[in-house]
C-alpha cells in the first residue's frame, strides 16, 4: 500500500511478507466464520426455518411474504422518505436564507432554531408530533424526518454558500439583481450542484431514520417484518431479518454509489470550467460550452 503516511512504500521482501501475512489472517478470519456457522448449525439454525423466504408454511406463498416486505413495507418506508425529503429541502432553503439575513434578530433566531433542531433526537420529535400534536403515525414520522433534516440540510447549504467564490454574489448585485434574486438565480443553483453528493448522502440518513417508524407504530419495513415473524413464529426471525438487512443494504449502497458518481462527474466538470475560465482571455475560447 504505497502512499500511506504510516509506513514506507514496501520493497519486494516486505511485499512478500505482507502477502503471506494477509493469507494467514485471511485464513484465520475464514476459520472464525466457519466456526461461527458450525456452532450455529449445532443449534439447529439451518433447519426448515429458511423456507419462510422460499416456500413458507401456514398456507402462505413466497410471493405473499415478499410482496408484504417489498411492496407494503419498503413502499411505506420510501413513501415516508419521499414525502419528508422535499419538505426538508424547502424548509432548509428558508432556514439557510434567513441565516444569511442582514437583520441580526432574524439571523440569531434562525441559528438558535437550527441548533435546537440539530440537538434533539429524531425520535423525540416524532413523539412531539404523536403525543403533543396528536398527529397520525405516518405524519409523525414525516414531521420528525422533515424538521431534523431541514436543519442538517440548511447547514449543508450554508457551507455551500460559504464555499462559493464571492465574485458570484458580487456579479449578481453588479448586474442589478436584488439580494434575493442573486441568491435564487445565481448562488443557490450552484450550491445545490456543488452539494449534491452531500445531499444524497443525507437522503440515505433520512431513509435509515424512517425505520424509527417501527417505534412510533408506522407500518414500514421493520414493522412488516415483525408482523411476518409474529405470524410464522420466532424461528423465522433470522431469515426475515437478513432479508430486511439485504433490502436496506441494496437501497442505501446504491444511493451512496450514485453520490460518489455524481461527485466524480461534478469534479471533472469543475476542472473543465476552470480550464475554460483560464482560456476566457482568448477570444476564440468563448464559444458556447457543450
Amino acid at each position, binding site marked *: 500500500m504505497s502512499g500511506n503516511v504510516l509506513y514506507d512504500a514496501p520493497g519486494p521482501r516486505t511485499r512478500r511478507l505482507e502477502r503471506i501475512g494477509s493469507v494467514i489472517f485471511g485464513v484465520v478470519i475464514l476459520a472464525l466464520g466457519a466456526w461461527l456457522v458450525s456452532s450455529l448449525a449445532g443449534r439447529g439454525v439451518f433447519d426448515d426455518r429458511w423456507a419462510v423466504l422460499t416456500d413458507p408454511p401456514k398456507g402462505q406463498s413466497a410471493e405473499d411474504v415478499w410482496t408484504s416486505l417489498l411492496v407494503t413495507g419498503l413502499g411505506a418506508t420510501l413513501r415516508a422518505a419521499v414525502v419528508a425529503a422535499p419538505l426538508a429541502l424547502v424548509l432548509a432553503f428558508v432556514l439557510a436564507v434567513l441565516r444569511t439575513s442582514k437583520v441580526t434578530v432574524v439571523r440569531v433566531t434562525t441559528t438558535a432554531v437550527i441548533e435546537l433542531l440539530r440537538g434533539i433526537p429524531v425520535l423525540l420529535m416524532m413523539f412531539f408530533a404523536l403525543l403533543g400534536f396528536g398527529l397520525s403515525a405516518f405524519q409523525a414520522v414525516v414531521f420528525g424526518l422533515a424538521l431534523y433534516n431541514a436543519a442538517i440540510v440548511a447547514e449543508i447549504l450554508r457551507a455551500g454558500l460559504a464555499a462559493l467564490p464571492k465574485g458570484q454574489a458580487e456579479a449578481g448585485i453588479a448586474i442589478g439583481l436584488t439580494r434575493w434574486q442573486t441568491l435564487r438565480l445565481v448562488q443557490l443553483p450552484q450550491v445545490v450542484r456543488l452539494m449534491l453528493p452531500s445531499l444524497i448522502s443525507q437522503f440515505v440518513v433520512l431513509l435509515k431514520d424512517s425505520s424509527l417508524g417501527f417505534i412510533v407504530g408506522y407500518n414500514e419495513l*421493520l414493522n412488516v417484518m415483525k408482523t411476518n415473524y409474529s405470524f410464522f413464529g420466532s424461528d423465522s426471525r433470522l431469515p426475515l431479518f437478513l432479508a430486511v438487512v439485504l433490502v436496506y443494504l441494496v437501497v442505501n449502497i446504491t444511493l451512496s454509489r450514485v453520490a460518489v458518481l455524481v461527485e466524480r462527474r461534478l469534479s471533472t466538470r469543475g476542472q473543465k470550467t476552470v480550464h475554460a475560465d483560464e482560456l476566457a482571455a482568448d477570444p476564440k475560447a468563448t464559444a458556447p460550452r457543450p
Partner: protein
Amino acid sequence: MSALIEELPRLWEGFQLTLFLAVVSGALSLVLGTVLAALRVAPLKSLRVFAAAYVEVARNTPLTLVFVFVVFVLPTLGLILPLGTTPAIIALTAYTSAFVCEAVRSGINSVGVGQAEAARAIGLGTVATLRLVVLPQALRTVVPPLINVLIALTKNTSVAAGFTVVELTSTSRGLARDNPADVLALLAGVAVCYLLITIPAGLLAGRIERKVVFSR
C-alpha cells in the same frame, strides 16, 4: 409547568440513564472504532477487506434494525442476553464504532505523506515518527469529527426507548401518558435535557475545529 417540576425526579432518572448509555457505549465504540481503523489502514489486505466490509454494512443499516437484531434475533440463536441496558449498549457500540472508524481513518489520511517522509529523512524511527509527527497532527483533525460522532450517539440512545430501556425519550412517553394536560411542557423539558448535552459538545467541537484550522 407545575407538572414538569413535580416530575423532575423521573426526568433526572431518565437523564442519568441516557448519560450512562452514551458514556459507556461511547467509550466502547471509541476503542472498537480505533481498532477497526487500525485494521483498515493495515498493510495486510485481508484485514483491510474485513474491516471495510464491517464498516460498510454497519453504516448502511438503520440503528433500529441493529437493535432488532440484538433484542429479538440473537435470542432465537440461543444467545440470551440480560434484559435492560446490555443489549442497548451492544447495539449502540456495534453501530457507532463504524462511524468512529471512518473519523479516525480520515484523520490519519489527512496527514500528508511528506510529513512522515520528512520525519524519516531526519532520522526518526518508526515509533518516533508516529509519536512526534504523525499522531499529534492526526489527533487534532480527528477530535472535532469524533465529538460529532459522540453527539450523534447521544441522540441515538433514544432508539433504546423502543426496546424496553427507560431512558429520556421513553420517560417522555410515560410522562405524557400520566399528565395528559401538560404533554408539550414535559416533552420540552426532555428536549432541554438532550440540548444540555448536545449543544455544549457541539460548541466544543466547533472551537477545537477553528483552533486546528488556525494552526495549519
